[in-house]
């Protein structure tokens, strides 16, 4: 049986991809985010744009390429998500 990811889980996956994959201050490009978070191009760009707008992800330009790094707010969100995922899991539920 296939397990569907919730919107919250997808956002967390995108954030952790950026967090794990960003090499130093160079950040992660959209292609790597698509690969790591297992999303389509359209969906990934939509989510990343939303995350940039909400201040969880910062957009930087490196060698004329758009890269993404996690902001302080994004790191806090990711930590908070992990804590509450454990909490929900103790009820046998997933975020």
């Amino acid at each position, binding site marked *: 049986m296939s397990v569907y990811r919730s919107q919250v889980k997808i*956002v967390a996956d995108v954030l952790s991809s950026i967090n794990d994959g960003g090499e130093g201050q160079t950040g992660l490009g959209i292609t790597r985010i698509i690969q790591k978070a297992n999303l389509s191009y359209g969906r990934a760009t939509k989510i990343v744009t939303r995350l940039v707008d909400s201040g969880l992800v910062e957009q930087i330009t490196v060698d004329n390429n758009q890269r993404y790094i996690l902001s302080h707010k994004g790191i806090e969100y990711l930590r*908070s998500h992990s804590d*509450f995922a454990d909490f*929900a899991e103790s009820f*046998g539920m997933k975020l």
Partner: protein
Amino acid sequence: MLGSYFLFSEYKLIEGLLYLIGSFIGYRVMRISREGYRNTRSPTLLRLTISFIALTIGFFLTAFTYIFPVFYELTFQSDLIFNFRLEFLGISIALTSLFFIIAASFELLGYFILALGHGIKSYQKASAASIAYGFLTTVSVLSILKSISFVFLLYGSFETLLSYLESKKRPILYMFLGFAALSAGEFIRWLALFYSGLSPLMISSILVKLIGFVMLYTPVSTFNTYKGEQSNVSI
């Protein structure tokens, strides 16, 4: 006779205190879930919040309905104005029934949303005739609400058990044992209704429910609420 009356009052007080503990645990879970929803906007945590708001209100009302009449009875124990007591007896019974029904409705709502969180896909409506029959007396309304609550509670505990078997994580086991003990306590309480006064079954029911509440609180107590409050991030 008088001794058994006091014993029965004590039992009501103990059960009331037990539900007060339940409402405190429910409140704690509700606060953590609410903080979680504020931070992550997760629908799962929203469902947990609503579920535990309903359960907290339900438990608190049940506690109030058990404890308040005990104080009332003890206050008027040595009083000479019996007529006053008798006049208020009818109102007291009606109010107690009403409070129990409201409390059971909140509990039902709470357990339903909790079961919904585990993925109930369809909710089959009972036939209008069976509902009309059930609404004939206050006792039957209460029995219906408690029965449905029991089914949802049982469903929730089985789903939690399945989650534990998948992940083998200890907090989920505590949660399952908590829900299972609450279900068992409720079931024993039904059996105890066949006996009047303070029966061993009634005492067992209270003890099992107490164990259930302690088990439910164990994983919740390990969670640091303030961790969530500090990172007030939302998307």
